[in-house]
């Protein structure tokens, strides 16, 4: 890969791993989302138990110039709780589907976290001093008899141990009949969208009792349902533009200036399919599980079951690049359908506009360099956990004679899925989530 050294490949090294070692994973501990904030100083995770854990990067240690700051726990809180909708006999999971950070405007940090039905704006603030010197209370906290207070004492702020507090500032509820899969903050930093299976809503961050419906693909007759919304994202620079992907492998780009209800797309991105290749599985594996704009906004990336595609916003009829993530699974689709793995929703992420990353099975994850056309498979495993040791590339043997160090398709562990990965916005630091552990890898610095 083209790294900072110019022409050198990035050499990924293990940095840290968070989470328990035990094989018996409690459902609540399953990581469901990972996201760096805009500076990369903070890294948030959400889990199936509705909890958010935020890590903060330590300031760079001048004496240890060979490694960047480590990430340590900064704050943790319960974002969502399980609920039961009695009217619809519907159990609402507390699982955090997505976290998105707001850009920092003042001392506090803000993030949006969402489960299937409710989005919450959380404020994370630091407190490192407290007022001391009140003379109105006794030692035990009871108020003193006012007639015994004879001096007017002004409290003084004194330093205290750092306390990080998370408080919910806004609750955006009751706007989604179906399950929320995406939230995306607009480049205007005032509005954001939330998307469920059939509808997309536009919110103002300050207003919780109202949202505008901007996309509605619910058919009049539910028997005619053929397609659902799988992901949505605002363009990084154009505040009027957003895209949403579907279970049929299409992406629609909408311009909010065109009309209040963006049911008619401005652009439709779809790769033509060869009808002779069509099978029972075609539609299922074409379903897009994630869509992400490049940092420039010129390109967007989509992830379907077997591949990652890069689209140029100026060309609708086919992607400009397609990268195979694990093509060897095409001849395993029958069993992957039977064990439901074919419905796994993998995410993907960018390093600027040059390198893309996505997860696979057996705790493998893949990176594709758009410039050199080289790709690499790495593994998130505690066995490789010596800091500053470069990770060894992995290889899957699709068929035929398995070479030493290769792993055969049939030996892959399909319970070890890497669905969520994130790339630091400025540095070559990546966060990779296995089922219940968070791995942090860094570029080896010379």
């Amino acid at each position, binding site marked *: 890969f083209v790294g900072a050294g110019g022409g050198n490949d990035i050499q990924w090294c293990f940095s840290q791993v968070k989470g328990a070692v035990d094989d018996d994973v409690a459902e*609540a501990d399953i990581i469901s989302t990972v996201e760096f904030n805009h500076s990369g100083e903070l890294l948030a995770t959400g889990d199936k138990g509705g909890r958010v854990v935020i890590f903060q990067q330590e300031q760079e240690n001048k004496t240890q110039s060979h490694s960047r700051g480590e990430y340590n726990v900064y704050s943790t809180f319960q974002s969502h709780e399980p609920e039961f909708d009695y009217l619809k006999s519907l159990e609402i999971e507390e699982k955090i589907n997505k976290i998105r950070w707001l850009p920092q405007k003042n001392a506090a940090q803000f993030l949006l976290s969402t489960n299937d039905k409710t989005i919450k704006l959380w404020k994370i603030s630091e407190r490192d001093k407290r007022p001391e010197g009140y003379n109105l209370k006794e030692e035990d906290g009871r108020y003193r008899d006012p007639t015994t207070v004879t001096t007017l004492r002004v409290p003084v702020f004194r330093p205290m141990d750092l306390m990080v507090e998370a408080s919910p500032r806004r609750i955006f509820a009751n706007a989604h009949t179906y399950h929320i899969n995406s939230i995306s903050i607009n480049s205007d930093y005032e509005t954001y969208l939330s998307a469920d299976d059939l509808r997309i809503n536009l919110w103002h961050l300050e207003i919780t009792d109202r949202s505008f419906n901007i996309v509605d693909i619910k058919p009049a007759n539910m028997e005619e349902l053929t397609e659902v919304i799988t992901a949505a994202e605002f363009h990084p620079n154009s505040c009027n533009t957003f895209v949403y992907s579907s279970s049929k492998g299409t992406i629609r780009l909408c311009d909010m200036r065109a009309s209040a209800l963006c049911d008619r797309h401005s652009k439709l991105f779809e790769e033509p399919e060869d009808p002779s290749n069509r099978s029972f599985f075609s539609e299922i594996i074409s379903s897009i599980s994630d869509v992400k704009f490049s940092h420039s906004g010129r390109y967007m990336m989509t992830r379907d079951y077997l591949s990652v595609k890069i689209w140029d916003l100026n060309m609708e009829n086919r992607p400009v690049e397609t990268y195979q993530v694990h093509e060897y699974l095409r001849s395993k*689709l029958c069993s992957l359908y039977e064990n439901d793995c074919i419905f796994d929703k993998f995410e993907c992420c960018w390093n600027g506009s040059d390198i893309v990353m996505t997860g696979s099975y057996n705790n493998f994850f893949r990176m594709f360099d758009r410039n050199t056309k080289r790709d690499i498979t790495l593994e998130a495993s505690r066995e490789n956990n010596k800091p500053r040791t470069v990770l060894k590339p992995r290889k899957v043997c699709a068929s035929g004679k398995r070479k030493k160090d290769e792993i055969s398709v049939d030996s892959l562990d399909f319970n070890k899925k890497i669905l969520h990965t994130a790339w630091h916005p400025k540095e070559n630091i990546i966060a990779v989530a296995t089922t219940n552990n968070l791995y942090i890898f860094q570029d080896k610095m010379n």
Partner: protein
Amino acid sequence: QDTQEKETITPERAEEAKLKAKYPNLGQKPGGSDFLMKRLQKGQKYFDSGDYNMAKAKMKNKQLPSVGPDKNLVTGDHIPTPQDLPQRKSSLVTSKLAG
């Protein structure tokens, strides 16, 4: 499938044939609405207070059929009671990522 034709069958089609052999009644429509409807109905539990109360009224003198040994299977031929639904409580334990 005829093994001599193997070269001309794509891996995907071969897998499809395997699946159809196992499940001959699989829906005619490839992919399609079955999955989508299942996706939309995620989280549906089957306690219906109307059914429950009507059954209670009808069977005033008899015992309501109670749930069998498998408490998780709250559908079928018995009336689910509110106690049968697994109680969902939020985990008050701190995440192990923070530990």
